[in-house]
Structures are given as C-alpha cells and as structure tokens.
C-alpha cells in the first residue's frame, strides 16, 4: 500500500519516492511511516521536529537533536560527537542533498553545519541500512533541503545570542522555477573583540596580550526547475566555514634570584589560525518514466578542508646582541570528491518495489604538513629545520546496488539487497559485497516485529590524535597497509502502537567492527602526514544493547522517553591483550523530553538528559616507592602509577536539564514573530570535559573539570 502511494506521488512529477524525507510532515505521520518501513533503526526527522526541540543558544541543531536519540552517545559535552552503537565518530555518513560532508561542526563542535531553516527532512539510520547507502560503518544521516516555493515569496529572519540567520525562497519563474537560500553567520566576534581588548587593557602592566577572533558561516542555495510534469532539475550549493585566529604576546624576563637584576629579556609572540569547512555542489535530474519507474541522475562535488597554521616568534636581547627565532608550522587536510550517480525506483509488480543504481566516486586526499624553524643570532642566520611533507592519494569508488522491498505474505515484508563496492587506491583494489536484509512482520494492528542484518565497509578513515573537536584530523583512504573498516550488525525490535497516541518501541542490536584505528603515538595535535599509517593501531570493536522508546502525543502536548542499556568495547592488541571498555561506553542513557502548547501564542519545552559517565584511563593503582615525613609529622607515601587497563575509570555521570519557551505572535500583516527563551543546563551541572586523579592534601581524588555552566539564551525569529 505504501509503495502504491509512493508511486502515485511519482506520477505527479515530483519523484518523491527517491527522497526518503517527507516535506514538513507531522511527527506522528513520520513515526507511522518509520514503523511501516521494513528497516530497523530508522528515525525520520522533519523540519518541524528540528525546530520545535530544544536549541542550544536558541539555534536548532541537527546533530544535537540526533544526540538525544537512543543508541547515540555524544562524547564530550557540547561537541558534535555522534557515536552510534559503539562507533568511532568518524564512521557516520553525512549526506547533504547527496553530497558527502566531512566537516560537520561549527564553533569547535557547538553547532553542526546543517542550517535547520533550509532542511526539509533527515533520515537517520543506525542499523538496517538499505543497500543504497554505503561507505560508513555506523550510521547514515541523509539530509535533504527544501525546494523553494513555486508561487510565493517568503522567508525567515532570526537573530540569536551568537548567530543570525536568514532564509528566503520564492519563484524565479512562477510555477516552474524556484529558489531558496539560507545564510547563517555568527556575530560573536563582535562581542569577543571588545572583551579581549578589555582583558588586555587589564593585563597591560605585565606586557601580556591575547588576541582572538572567531567566526563561522554557512550558505545554502537551492534552485529547482520543473522541466515538465515528469522532469525536475535541482541545483544545490553549500559552503560552510569556521575560522579561529588566536594570538598571544608576552614579555619574558628572567631575573637573578639574589640581585633581582634582569638576566635575560625577550618578547614571545604566537599567532595561530584554525580553519575548517566544506563546500558541496549537487546537480540532479529526476525523471519519471511511467507510473512504475522513476530515476534520479546526479553529479555531486564536495570539498572539505581543515587547516591549522601557527607562527611562533621569540626575540631576546642578551649581552647586547639581538636574537630572533621563528617557527612556522602548517598542517592541512583537504578532500575532493566528485560522484556521478544514477538511482532507479521501479515497481514491476504489485508485491515488489525495486531500487537499483550505480555510482562512481573519485576522491582526492591532500594531507600536507610543513615546518620551518630558523634563528638569527646577531648577524648570523641559522636554519634549524625546514621540511615539508605531503601526499596525494587518489581513490576510485565505483559501486552498484539493488534492493527489493517485497511483500512475502500478508503482513510479512522483506527488504533484501546487496551493495557491491570496489575501492581502488595506489594499485590496490578492494572488492567487497555488502548484503543487507530486513524483515517486518505486522503481528497485529498494534504490534510490528522487525529484524535486520547489515554488513558495511568503510574505505575512508578519520585519523585524529586527540578527542578534541578541532580541525586537527586527517581524512585518508584505505591503502595497501590500512585495510577497510568493516562492520556487521544485527538488530531486532518490537514496535507497538498503543491507544491514546502512545507508542512503545523496543530494539536490540549486536554489532562488531574490524580494522578500526586508534592513534598510538606520543602527544601530537596533528597526525603525521608522511608516515601516518605507522602512527595508528588496528583493532576491533563490539557493541550491543537494547533501546526503549516511549512516546505520547496529542494535539497540544507531546512527550518522549528513551532509555538505552548498552555496552561498547574495544580490542587493540597494542594497548591491551584483552577487551576493554570504549571511551563512550555509557551503560545507561535516559532522555525525557516534553512539549506543551498552551495556546497558539505560547509553548514550552523541557528536556532532561542523563547518561553514565564517559571513561578515561587513569593510573589508578600505585607501586609503593617510599614514605616521607611531612613537617607536621604525618607520613606521605609515594607511588608510581600503574595502569590496570585502558579506560578503566568512569567519569561522573552526565545530566542536565534544558528548558525553553516560545512566544509566538501573528501580526496583522500576516508575519509571524517568535521570541524564544532557552536555558541550557538549567541547574548548572558542571559536567566533565576532562579529568585526572590528583593528590589533594595527601589524598588521591578524582578531579573532573567542567567547562559548560548554565547558558540562558534568547532569539528573535520573524517569518515573513
């Protein structure tokens, strides 16, 4: 029945069945469709879902919304981590209108790169991946942006505490061609510049001066042209960028401890730049051949960049001679991807809905690094170091897929498919088939059972040396030495549609991962470029657990409760000869969110998030070395730390309460203005960002460091 409805939609020329996202559908309708789909692990978010949930800094955010879902760990607070079913964080496929996005965060992870104003809908898979998706192990986030309105001009303007947004759409040729653009930019640089100037003024006496400038922006542009009632052309452009510049100047003086005379004096200067972002372009042609066959052919391009550069200079004046030393370092990771893809949607018989397609993607990976150090001693210049390293990798990724959504028996549906992927890099070829199977059985009008088995491969690796959400990572391909990552996942669930607008879903999953990589070298902010394969260790992972989601909804109110009980483990022989817990092994995760609309003019939101603490590695045992006697006569025993295993300590549990309210007013001219007031972390729980075990007054205690306090924000939105 669903398939017929979809094909009927195709007959209108929209070919909507190729896009899994409905346009601004109600949550309940989305949920119904989610349950009716054969796949497990699918969550469908509409634009309305994104815009009605809580928004950090009053800016709706896709990844923050996904982080609330069961089975998803968020990693470090406020960052855009997305660790799905024990995943690594670099194993999520982000598609924006078909183009891959690698850099998905703004403001060191505070926001994601997806502007909710232009988003039409999101399909999020954490298991049961259909055969048309591939290339990542853990999740698929398929974001589609809206077509512009073919008949009316309208838009949205929003000003929040740290950013402003503008979205506008309308016809270029009435009834034929439409456009939409969305622009978002932070204006926090206008706040931070005077704030830093004030701090520098306070510190001017000691010659210490900081500087900082941060800005992010993203721009979405979409043009849709209806050639006929069977042909639609779409052009989508996106550019998102972050730039952080920091500086540090200070006078340095060394004094003789006895005479107080200045022994050495100098001036220390640091200038650093971090920049990261993505640019994508996609051109698609949707064609409906008949009521039973439709196609989409597209050409997609994406460029992703992350760059870190700094210059450190030091001047000193000793014994009448001016000395100068300088270090310039630059790290860059760029990825170009161009993909040609064709997808077909065919319903040859009543009980079969076949999707098939092929794509050819060409990747170019450009990691580069350079270091130049020199000194000027008086009139002599001495070069300390001057080297650069860079690699250029080309990867070809042709793939084909076919999947058949078939009705086997009344109430029993299967989606059986296979994706065949080939990856060619530097004379090495990996050919890997990926079978996908999903079954759905409607046991009654109330109860639906589903199960799925998927096999996924990933040919690209996000390599990073730290967990900090900075652009200090490299995307590099599988090579002859670094094998493709590989996962298998089985999932099963029971989905119940209960009376009074309630539903209850229970899903379980088991997932294994092979050839995953972790950094295993000494401290570095940026992975090595010329010998990167040697700096990472290969290991395995596994995750399993159960997720329970309960929801209730009526005309005015909605509430969702989600609970996850899960395990995420790792096995890296170079770190330990046994399985150990993953850093994001959050045993329990519990979310409750509720919205209530008091009237057309006032609505409130509340959400409470809890999960077991993340884990870290601490030398939690000591080898006794000796005892000293303190001045007060007490004994102090000192030890050498012993690490009993990786990630052996659980950090304090994470929880916070978010509140929000919208004051909505429709003006006489038809425009709608909304004042949003939000409070992030309402009871100011200083959740842990990093931690250590320290000696405090002779006692060994865990010390957690929280950085994110209560954050009240507001925004003004005008729909015109």
């Amino acid at each position, binding site marked *: 029945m669903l398939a017929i409805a979809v094909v009927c939609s195709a007959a209108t020329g929209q070919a909507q069945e190729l896009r899994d996202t409905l346009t601004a559908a109600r949550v309940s309708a989305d949920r119904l469709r989610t349950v009716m789909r054969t796949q497990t692990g699918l969550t469908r978010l509409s634009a309305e879902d994104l815009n009605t949930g809580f928004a950090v800094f009053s800016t709706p955010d896709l990844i923050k919304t996904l982080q609330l879902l069961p089975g998803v760990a968020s990693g470090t607070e406020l960052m855009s981590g997305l660790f799905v079913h024990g995943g690594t964080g670099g194993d999520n496929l982000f598609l924006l209108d078909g183009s891959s996005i690698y850099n998905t965060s703004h403001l060191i992870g505070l926001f994601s790169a997806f502007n909710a104003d232009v988003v039409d809908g999101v399909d999020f898979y954490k298991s049961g991946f259909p055969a048309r998706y591939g290339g990542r192990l853990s999740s698929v986030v398929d974001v589609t942006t809206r077509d512009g309105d073919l008949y009316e001009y309208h838009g949205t303007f929003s000003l929040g505490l740290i950013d402003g947004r503008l979205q506008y759409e309308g016809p270029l040729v009435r009834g034929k061609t439409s456009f939409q653009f969305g622009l978002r930019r932070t204006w926090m640089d206008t706040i931070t510049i005077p704030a830093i100037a004030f701090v520098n003024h306070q510190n001017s006496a000691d010659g210490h001066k900081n500087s900082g400038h941060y800005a992010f922006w993203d721009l979405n542009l979409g043009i849709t042209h209806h050639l006929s009632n069977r042909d639609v052309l779409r052009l989508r452009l996106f550019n998102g960028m972050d730039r952080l510049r*920091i500086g540090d100047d200070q006078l340095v003086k060394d004094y003789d401890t006895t005479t107080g005379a200045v022994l050495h004096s100098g001036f220390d200067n640091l200038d650093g730049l971090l920049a990261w972002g993505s640019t994508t372009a996609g051109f698609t042609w949707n064609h409906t051949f008949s009521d039973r066959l439709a196609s989409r052919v597209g050409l997609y391009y994406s460029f992703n960049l992350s760059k870190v550069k700094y210059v450190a200079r030091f001047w000193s004046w000793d014994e009448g001679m001016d000395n100068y030393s300088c270090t310039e370092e630059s790290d860059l990771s760029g990825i170009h991807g161009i993909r040609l893809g064709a997808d077909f949607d065919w319903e040859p018989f009543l009980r079969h809905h076949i999707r098939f397609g092929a794509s050819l993607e060409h990747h170019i990976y450009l990691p580069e690094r350079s270091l130049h150090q020199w000194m000027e001693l008086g009139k002599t210049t001495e070069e300390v170091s001057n080297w650069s390293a860079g690699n250029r990798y080309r990867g070809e990724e042709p793939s084909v897929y076919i999947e058949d959504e078939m009705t086997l028996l009344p109430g029993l549906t299967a989606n059986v498919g296979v994706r065949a992927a080939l990856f060619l890099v530097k004379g090495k070829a990996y050919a890997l088939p990926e079978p996908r199977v999903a079954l759905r059985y409607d046991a009654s009008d109330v109860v639906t059972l589903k199960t799925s088995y998927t096999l996924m491969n990933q040919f690209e690796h996000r390599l990073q040396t730290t967990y900090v959400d900075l652009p200090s990572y490299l995307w590099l391909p599988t090579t002859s030495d670094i094998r493709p990552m590989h996962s298998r996942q089985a999932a099963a669930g029971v989905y119940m549609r209960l009376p009074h607008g309630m539903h209850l879903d229970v899903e379980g999953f088991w997932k294994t991962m092979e050839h995953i990589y972790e950094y295993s070298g000494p401290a*570095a902010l940026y992975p090595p470029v010329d010998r990167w394969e*040697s700096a990472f260790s290969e290991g395995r992972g596994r995750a399993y657990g159960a997720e329970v989601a309960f929801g209730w909804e009526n005309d005015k109110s909605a509430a969702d409760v989600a609970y996850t009980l899960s395990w995420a483990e790792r096995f890296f*022989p170079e*770190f330990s000869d046994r399985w150990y817990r993953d850093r994001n092994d959050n045993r329990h995760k519990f979310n409750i969110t509720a919205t209530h609309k008091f009237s057309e003019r006032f609505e409130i939101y509340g959400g409470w998030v809890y999960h077991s603490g993340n884990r870290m590695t601490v030398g939690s045992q*000591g080898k006794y070395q000796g005892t000293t006697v303190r001045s007060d006569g007490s004994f102090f025993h000192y030890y050498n730390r012993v690490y009993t295993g990786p990630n052996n*300590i659980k950090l304090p549990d994470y929880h916070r309460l978010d509140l929000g309210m919208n004051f909505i007013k429709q003006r006489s001219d038809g425009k709608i203005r909304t004042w949003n007031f939000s409070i992030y972390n309402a009871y100011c729980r200083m959740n842990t960002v990093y*931690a250590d075990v320290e000696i405090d007054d002779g006692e060994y205690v865990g010390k957690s460091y929280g950085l994110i306090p209560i954050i009240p924000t507001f925004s003004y939105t005008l729909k015109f």
Partner: protein
Amino acid sequence: MRRVLMIILVLTAMCGCERSFDISKQVGDSTIWMTFIPSNDYDSTFFFVQATTPLAGKTNPVLTNGESVGVRVNGQLLTLEKNRRSFADRLQCYTTDYSFMPGDVVEASATVPGIGTVGASCKVPEPFPSFTWKAWVVEKTSSINSLFVDIEYDDPGDGGYYGAVVCQYIEETSQWEDSDPETGEKYWGEIKRSTRTEYLPPRAMTEIDGLSAGSEEPITAMPKYHNYLSNVPDSQRRVQIWSDVSSPSPKDDRRHMTIASRCNEQPGRIDYTDGTYHGWTEHHYKYQLVLYHFSESYYNYLKARYNSDNNDFSALGLAPASFVYTNVQGGTGVCGAYTVIYSDWIELF
C-alpha cells in the same frame, strides 16, 4: 602546535570549574604487578613482584608477605633465588642456573597471599636476523662525531620487533718523556685507558621506575615502517625500537641511523712538546652495533611506556590511551623477552 591547544584549553578553563569525584569504588582491589624479561643478555634474570596499592583517599601502602613465584621454561620448572625483600616492598627473585635461549617458551606466575595469582607467558625470540652494516662519518667536530649507519637485514618471516643502538668505545693511549726529579734520569711514561659510551638497556624501562622523558629515557619508539631512525643528539644513549610487522609489501628491511656521539678528544695522534717535556696522545674510536629482537609483548610494553612519558593529552583523557599495555593475566606488568646480538667493533678514525 600543542601550545595552540593549551591556550584554547586554558581560555575555556577560565570559565570552568573543578570538582572532586569519588574513585574509591573504581580503582579496584590490589593487583599484582610482575615483570619477568628473559633474554640472552644476562646470566641471571630478575623476577619482580609487588602488590599494587589502590590510589583512592588517604592511601597506605599494601605490604605483603609470603609471595611465591614460579617460572617454567619449555615446561620445566626453574629454580629461583629469592634474595631479599627489596626496596619498596618489592619481592625480587632471580634465576641462577639457566641461560635463556632463543625459542624458549617461558611461563611465569606469581602468587601473593590475600590477593591472588597472576601469570603470563612469552617466547624468547630468535636472534636479530642476519644483517650487514656500514657506517660513515658525516661530520666531525671537536666534541661530536656524527655517523651515518646503514643496517640491512634479512627478515625471514612476517616481520618482527627490533631495536638498535650504536655503542662507542674510546681507546686512549698517552706517552710522554719525563725525568725523575731525584736522579734526573729520563724515561717514557705511558697511560692506556678506554671508555665505553653506555646506554641504558631496554630492561631499564621495566625495572627502574620514574624515568622521565629526556636524556635518561632508555628507548625511543620509532614509527612502524619508518626506515630512518632517530637523529636526535645523544641518541646513542637510547635503543631505538621499531616494528616491521605487517609492513608494506615488498618489505624494505633497511634502517638508517644518524648517530651523534660525544667525543672529548679529537681522534688520531696529537703530539705536544713544552721544552723538555714532550709526548703524544692518541685516541681511537670504535663502534659496535647492538641489535635487539623483542617479543611482541615486550615491544608493546616498551612502546606504551614511551608513549606514557610523552603524551600529556592522554593523561587528561583527551587522547586515546596508547600508553597502557599488559599481558599479565589477572594483574599488571609484563612478561616479555628479547634476544640481543653484538656486531664486531669497527674503527672509523
């Protein structure tokens, strides 16, 4: 580059706060730390056992009595001498009547009353594969001899875990003509002495605690497949270790080292005269290549210890904890083995 990150952390931490949390329920009970590193390097091999103390709250050391250890080589029980309750309540045993050979399968276990029994095993690796080496003088100053060393070896299997260090030996011969102050009789005096530049053996990493990064670190862990080893000054004091397991095909079994060895005197003969007093001094510098073959467990342990000293991000939980390794079942520490061979001395000056 780390400074960039530290500035960001400091700026963000300015608006943050610290909070204590209870770790007493997570540090666990005392465990047993043991190390046993059999090799062909020494006549006797030490076996250290110590109970660890959970570090939570006011911590008194866990002291023990009545520990027992056992070592089996190829299934045969070895005799161990328990010589003393050593420094810091550590039981120190040593083997007396057995020289470990390549291919020996070693099983070590330790029991501490009230805590339990732990065990681990390893296999003494074959000697470093057949090799050739060459050395050139690339720079010679009054205080530094810089050598370029080229090692080419024939790794027979799927690769191994290796280490190398160049040892410098200085022979000094001085002769001078002098006269007896009482009789005025002239005679020739002579002094011969030799100095060997010492390096810390890798097992220092296992047996000595508290070694910090820097000149006293016994090893430098090199990246896998990286053919160029360290060129750090003073690197002659460190054994540079590397793995070529799973290395790219075709494997390149060559390693190149640049060694900067300190020298106090110019090589060769220096004549001097001061009126009636005259003589000469001659310095000869000889070099020897010392090559290690480690078991996988010992290599992993050494590399983890090296990373432990050199990754402060991991210590804050901001980076993967690559500095943890143990193969002791039920406890911590390591049972790992190595085999060392020495090349002939070569004279370059």
